[in-house]
């Protein structure tokens, strides 16, 4: 076995700049995302980590006045996710996203998970049932909801809602799963369940997670990127970043002198 074995690339940001109108929110970001690994984005509030995350599935396209420069290459097909020739809907079909606050649709548990499949034109009841079950199992919530799939999703607890949202994202077999501070609205027990789930999920899907909880980054991620004021200050293996950061700013943040 090779000691310096490099995992395959799933995506790579190249000279990425992003502007909200005139304000530049991301400055020349270069960063790899490795296949079937968990990459954490950390940094103080307003450093651009969520902005960066939301660039991957072109969420910024939903609002006027936003502009990208540079590229995010997506592998194996080497598509530039940010290209104006690439439809944002195509991008969102390939990537999944879990939001900061659980945002289940005010529909049944079943319909929440089935929605992504319906969008893709799936109408066969048996296929839907199957995939919904798989996704709910993937989201580690199947046992809790299997007897009440027709209940309204907003009646679940916050932690269950978030795992349902993960199941919703998993149902369409995304190649890259984006997590935007997925546990910031949850209690420690629900947070633990989600972290365990992320650990389980990286066997089958690449994960990029924004978190403002450094312990969480240390617990769940293989790679960590520290961002500050729209810049990528440091990127590396999580243990290395946390044990011996190269940059003074990273060290200050990690040791709690700033943040």
């Amino acid at each position: 076995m090779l000691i310096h074995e490099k995992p395959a690339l799933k995506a790579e940001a190249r000279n990425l700049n992003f502007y909200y109108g005139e304000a530049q929110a991301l400055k020349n970001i270069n960063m790899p995302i490795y296949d079937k690994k968990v990459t954490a984005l950390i940094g103080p509030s307003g450093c651009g980590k969520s902005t960066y995350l939301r660039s991957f599935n072109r969420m910024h396209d939903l609002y006027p006045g936003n502009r990208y420069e540079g590229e995010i290459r997506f592998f194996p097909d080497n598509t530039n996710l940010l290209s104006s020739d690439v439809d944002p809907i195509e991008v969102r079909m390939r990537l999944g996203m879990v939001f900061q606050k659980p945002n289940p649709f005010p529909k049944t548990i079943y319909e929440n998970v089935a929605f992504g499949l319906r969008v893709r034109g799936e109408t066969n009841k048996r296929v839907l049932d199957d995939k919904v079950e798989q996704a709910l199992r993937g989201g580690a919530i199947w046992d809790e909801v299997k007897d009440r799939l027709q209940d309204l999703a907003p009646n679940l607890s916050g932690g269950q809602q978030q795992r349902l949202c993960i199941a919703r994202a998993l149902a369409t077999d995304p190649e890259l799963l984006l997590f935007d501070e997925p546990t910031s609205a949850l209690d420690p027990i629900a947070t633990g369940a989600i972290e365990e789930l992320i650990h389980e999920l990286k066997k089958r899907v690449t994960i990029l997670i924004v978190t403002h909880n450094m312990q969480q980054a240390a617990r769940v991620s293989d790679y960590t990127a520290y961002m500050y004021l729209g810049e990528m200050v440091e990127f590396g293996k999580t243990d290395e970043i946390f044990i011996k950061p190269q940059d003074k700013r990273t060290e200050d943040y990690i040791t709690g002198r700033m943040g």
Partner: protein
Amino acid sequence: MQALTTEQIRALIARGKMKDTIFQALGIICLAIGLLVIFLLVGDMLQRGMERLNLDFFTNFASRKAAQSGILSAWVGTILVMFVTAMAAVPLGVAAGIYLEEYAKRNWVTDIIEINITNLAAVPSIVYGLLALGIFVYAFGFGQSILSAGLTLALLILPIVIVSTREAIRAIPAMIREGSMAVGATRWQTCRYHIIPYAMPGILTGVIIGLARAIGETAPIITIGALTFIAFLPPVPFTGEPPAGLFEWVMSPFTVMPIQIFNWTSRPDPAFEINAAAAGFVLMVMVLSMNAIAIYLRYKMRKNIKW
């Protein structure tokens, strides 16, 4: 500053609470004045029209003899006109509202459209009548028909439907829209599966409030030349020989409740005043039941929508 003693604190609270009580009393009085006026009006109409409020009143046509006069053609006309109004205003208004909220780019053109929708809501209803007289009655050749009246009132309530649709859509949190788009839905799929269903209670409320306003409109209907004396009913809707026969009713002459009331109040014979009061009461009941339906539907549908 010296810390307050318990006595001082209590005195302070007592003084504050005095003002609370005064304002509360004032509020109740103001509320009572408003409610009282409505109750008096409705009660007065009911009392004066009481003797006419029997089954015959609903099944008789208007007649020269006050006692045998009824509102059959008026209430049937009102319901048919309202039906046409809803059929026209709901799709137009809802589609326009969705377009403005979900599709339109934010620029000066949308700003101007937005301002003008607000202006449309302020246009006096008689102006809609004049417009309809020129367009529907003459230019389109619909004549003095249920169709003309329904479309006129649809124009009148269109701004209400558009505005309530937009408000209902705006009340949906952005994270729901983002959640839908994030799984790869198009804008239309997002509207079709999420925005429209979740906005439906608000839209319905707006539509019914609009219809409740339209049901009492007299001026534009008179302007397009609705008859005041109709002793026959339009063909029963959707029963004639298809295809044209199904819609014969929309081209029929008609009268509506407010016109019937207006007609009766302008008669010299005071006996017709009783008819007018009775019909006025019936119209009030129609409006209030529409509002009641709106409240019920909103309550029922909102129960299942939360974020």
